[in-house]
């Protein structure tokens, strides 16, 4: 129920519902056991390009099959209305386009955006040399145009954000790459999409700097044994090393930011 009218947007009817489909009610229970389309260890192919947002200091666009995310970095710019700080401030904002999920996302209705922004922030923070940017702020804006699996979305957003930071010429200890894994039955499936993540018992998203061999953030949700969790981390780290090549290639191919 809408508590107050949004006067800043054009609003439609008071209530509307996503379509209900006829087949949905009888189908299920016939999902194949094994993974379809790729082996459990495969991640989806990544397309990454920097410099598409010309207004920003640095930008990156990432596509992993159906997940499509644009990211822009503005700054370092002057930190306004804030007391002196000898370290820079890293702001991350994640926004889902209203059409990015299966059901329409009404703007400003839930806190999911902020929790994802927090995860991306955590992934990036250890890498960025904020001590070199006193009195300034770095703004990282992420717009999700299409999401296919939340864990994969967090990973892709972290990769795009780190590529955009590098493209903006911000000093970092290393490139951050990220990968997700889910445990389905007793198998670890890398980079799950939405339906696979729904089948999984638990998911883990790992962000690391492969060049330095350090982990910057790990987020696990759902049920996993300790052994499974460690296995997920190990496999994620391996895939992150692969992703590192993709990011490095995209950065060397790009035109330098202005």
């Amino acid at each position: 129920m809408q508590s107050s009218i949004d006067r800043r947007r054009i609003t439609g009817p008071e209530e509307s519902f996503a379509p209900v489909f006829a087949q949905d009610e009888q189908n299920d229970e016939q999902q194949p056991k094994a993974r379809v389309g790729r082996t459990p260890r495969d991640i989806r192919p990544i397309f990454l390009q920097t410099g598409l947002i010309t207004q920003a200091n640095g930008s990156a666009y990432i596509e992993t099959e159906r997940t499509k995310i644009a990211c822009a970095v503005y700054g370092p710019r002057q930190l306004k209305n804030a007391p002196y700080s000898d370290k820079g401030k890293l702001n991350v904002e994640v926004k889902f386009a209203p059409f990015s999920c299966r059901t329409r996302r009404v703007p400003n209705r839930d806190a999911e955006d902020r929790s994802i922004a927090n995860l991306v922030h955590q992934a990036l923070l250890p890498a960025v040399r904020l001590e070199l940017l006193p009195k300034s702020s770095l703004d990282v804006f992420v717009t999700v145009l299409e999401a296919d699996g939340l864990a994969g979305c967090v990973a892709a957003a972290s990769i795009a954000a780190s590529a955009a930071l590098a493209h903006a010429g911000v000093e970092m200890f290393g490139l951050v790459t990220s990968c997700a894994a889910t445990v389905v039955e007793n198998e670890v499936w890398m980079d799950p999409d939405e339906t696979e993540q729904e089948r999984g018992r638990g998911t883990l998203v790992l962000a690391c700097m492969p060049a330095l061999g350090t982990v910057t953030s790990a987020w696990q949700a759902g049920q996993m044994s300790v052994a499974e969790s460690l296995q997920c981390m190990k496999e994620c780290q391996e895939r992150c090393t692969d992703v590192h090549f993709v990011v490095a290639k995209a950065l060397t191919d790009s035109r330098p930011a202005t």
Partner: protein
Amino acid sequence: MSSDASSAPPNAPDASIFQRLHPKAYLERFLAAGFRADGRRTDDWRELSVNTGSINTAEGSALVRLGDTTVVCGVKAEIAEPELDKPNEGFLVPNLDLPAICSPKFKPGAPAEEAQVLSNRLYDLLTSCDVLPLDSLCIHPGKAVWSIYVDAVCINYDGNVFDATAAAVVAALASARLPKATYNEETNRTICSRTETTSLELKRRPLCMSFGIFDSLHLLVDPSSFEEPLIESTMTIAVDESGDVCSLQQEGMLRIGDKTTESIMQECFLAAKKRRKELEPFIDNLR
């Protein structure tokens, strides 16, 4: 970054510094030589590209680039109850978002003035020339209608966002596929089919063409983000596929040298019609 800036001597004549400090004089010097800062002539439009259907979670979608200006538009269809006094009419809800990602001039948070104004203009454009007749969205009179949410998101703001948005919205609506819906009177529910789809019946396909007047001397078509703040008068003309004018919006003093208002209008109308014809292959064949 800081090392780059300090590598040039402080007083070196640098075009980009001149551009930032004296944007007006900068543009004037270009125009005196017959060109604009991005190398275009005053009557050159930027290249348009339209890519539809790339977003799978939307019923219809379009990515439009006008030069570097990029707008993504997605159409989501939901089912709602019609209003009591209009039992046959569905809803069309267009919104344009100008998020902080697209330009340094926008801050994160609720839509600012510009986004609100442009969303309203978009709504006026779609309703005033009856682009999508609302009674075509009826599933069952008085019980169920489609509510079509048209959300446009600007990813890169390089001027003339409204023209790009209008193109993205029309392209997304034209390529949208709604599932076939049937209302069951006994269960009071609307059920959709996964296999059968219908497209929206677009009555007209208006596209917008914008002009700016600089210095009361130059008519600049398709202004860029550098030119927009320097322009004293703007005009946006919407023209549909048969060459009819659907909407016109003009702000500021319409004056170029000693030309009459009528002749300026005439010039803009002709240029808009010509451009609409050129854009035909991008929009009019979309199904």
